[in-house]
């Protein structure tokens, strides 16, 4: 580990060893891990998120829905589409907007782009070095140029989709209540379709390769939470379901879950109402909605033979992520193949007072937004619950369960294993730290 020290407890009879990873690397944002170990048992496991709180929930107060959609895209440079999708669906639900089916498909394409971009980055540049014994992607690129180039090729496709639909490659600006500010021309997408189809073998190889990576031994049956839709793999629509029976509407997250403050983190944590931590993201989606995967992705998953292990060994999340990458590439090609520009890029709408709330599936898992809106359509109060803050309790739970198996390893190896575990969640700490209430922090 980066740091370890031994302290004596208040009674002076037993020793508590405190391990600290002072700066987590290869995650988005700044965080720290602290473990306390007594007599070989982990007594505390804290994932400390100390990046400066970002007050987006305050920033959107007094803004209308379309302004909110533009502002929340700034929360994260990796998953801006997710923030826009949760927000736009929340407002459309409140205002009773019926979007054109073509627009609905374009929004899935938009999400496919973000999943491709985010998953390729994480699989190839952030997580794979752990499995292959490299300290970072630099050394991986030196020894396995072909692997890194494959990852970059796939990622670039995701970037292109987001740029075409969003108007720019980062912080997209085209999403509007009712649709998009403009629909892409057929010519804009035609070349992309061919490139996506040509990339399917790369994506299939990603699944095979990820499945060949040997994970640390670990097994725990987590509570899984994801959207589930009767007809499609979950992205923008469906019901929030769990592996143990939760089943609520996408706007009703607060019926089943709640946020709370923990003293060691700037991010609020979320748990189910009964206090149980839960796991979101590719593992949860593949487990709870795997029967809705694109046939190519379903076949690739089946060929790995890892369906059960995916559920219980969080290190295998890299395989689930690869399966979703393949799904997104294949579905994106199909959406473009069927695309005909809509008559109007956005439907008309009028504001009304009420609560706008919705959840969609960000690359890292369920992202819930809730806005209290006045009769002019201006936000009076906002709640944004990103997936990393929801996964934080599960991460700590897994750290406490897994750490005893690495405590006998040299510090460097133990640290590497624990960081690998954290990276299995693809945490986006930048996303998770924008909702701290200063009054609470000061107490």
């Amino acid at each position, binding site marked *: 580990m980066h740091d370890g020290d031994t302290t004596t407890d208040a009674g002076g009879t037993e020793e508590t060893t405190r391990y600290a990873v002072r700066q987590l690397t290869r995650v*988005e*944002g700044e965080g720290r891990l602290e473990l306390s170990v007594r007599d070989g048992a982990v007594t505390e496991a804290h994932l400390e998120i100390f990046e400066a709180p970002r007050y987006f929930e305050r920033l959107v107060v007094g803004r209308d829905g379309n302004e909110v959609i533009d502002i929340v895209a*700034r929360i994260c*440079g*990796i998953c801006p589409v997710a923030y826009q999708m949760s927000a736009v669906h929340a407002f459309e639900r409140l205002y009773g907007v019926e979007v054109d089916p073509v627009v609905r498909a374009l929004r899935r394409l938009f999400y496919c782009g973000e999943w491709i971009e985010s998953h390729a980055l994480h699989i190839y*540049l952030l997580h794979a070095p752990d499995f292959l014994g490299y300290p970072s992607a630099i050394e991986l690129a030196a020894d396995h140029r072909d692997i890194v180039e494959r990852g*970059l090729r796939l990622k*670039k496709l995701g970037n292109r989709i987001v740029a075409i639909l969003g108007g720019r490659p980062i912080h997209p600006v085209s999403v509007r209540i009712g649709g998009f500010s403009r629909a892409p021309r057929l010519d804009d997408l035609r070349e992309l379709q061919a490139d996506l189809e040509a990339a399917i073998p790369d994506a299939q190889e990603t699944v095979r390769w990820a499945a060949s990576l040997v994970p640390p031994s670990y097994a725990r049956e987590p509570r899984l939470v994801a959207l589930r839709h009767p007809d499609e793999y979950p992205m923008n629509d469906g019901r929030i379901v769990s592996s143990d029976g939760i089943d609520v509407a996408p706007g009703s997250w607060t019926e089943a879950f709640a946020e709370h403050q923990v003293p060691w983190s700037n991010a609020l944590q979320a748990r189910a109402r009964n206090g149980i931590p839960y796991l979101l993201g590719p593992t949860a989606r593949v487990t709870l909605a795997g029967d809705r995967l694109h046939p190519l992705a379903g076949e690739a998953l089946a060929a790995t033979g890892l369906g059960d292990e995916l559920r219980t060994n969080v290190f295998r999340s890299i395989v689930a992520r690869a399966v979703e990458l393949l799904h997104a590439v294949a579905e994106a090609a199909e959406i473009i193949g069927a695309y005909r520009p809509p008559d109007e890029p956005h439907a008309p709408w009028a504001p009304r007072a009420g609560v706008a709330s919705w959840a969609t599936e960000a690359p890292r898992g369920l992202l819930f937004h809730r806005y209290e809106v006045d009769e002019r359509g201006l936000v009076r109060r906002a709640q944004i619950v990103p997936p990393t803050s929801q996964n934080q309790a599960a991460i700590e739970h897994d750290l406490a369960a897994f750490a005893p198996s690495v405590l006998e390893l040299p510090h460097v190896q133990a640290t590497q294993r624990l960081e690998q575990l954290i990276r299995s969640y693809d945490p986006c700490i930048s996303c998770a730290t*924008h909702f701290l209430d200063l009054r609470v922090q000061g107490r």
Partner: protein
Amino acid sequence: MRRVSVLVCGERMRGDDAVAAEILAALPATTRSLVDVRDLSGLMPDDLLESTGPVIVLDAVHGPPAGTVVDLPLDRLDVLVESGASPGSSHALPLPMVLRIVEHLAGGLPDGRFIGVAGTSFTLGASLSQPVSDAVPSAAARLGHWIRVLAHPRTAVRCA
């Protein structure tokens, strides 16, 4: 003449993280016409691998006193990192790591510079701090100089 790519890193809504955009905005229009500009939140390897000509990366810097202008060749960013400072772009793949990956994949880095200004406040919704705001004209002058040098490589040889 070569077209120069200017890669603008940082989040404009986050205090001094907006300095890259401000430096670009302070560039005279005649110089601006010599470059292709790309806005990025954080630099990724593919951003550099796609560049066919010289590149200038603009970013905020953490570490040195606020308002310090950092101007280094792309292949000498290790000097910055060894001094305890770091470019402010994506934490997921820090800029020095991006450059090393590109070196491995492309056999070297594109001809280019890193120009940054050390920030002090990266709070969401804040404007540029005074020291950073004061440093923008100087950084923009450095940017203009390097655009002209990189666009006309023979001039660069004579000047050296």
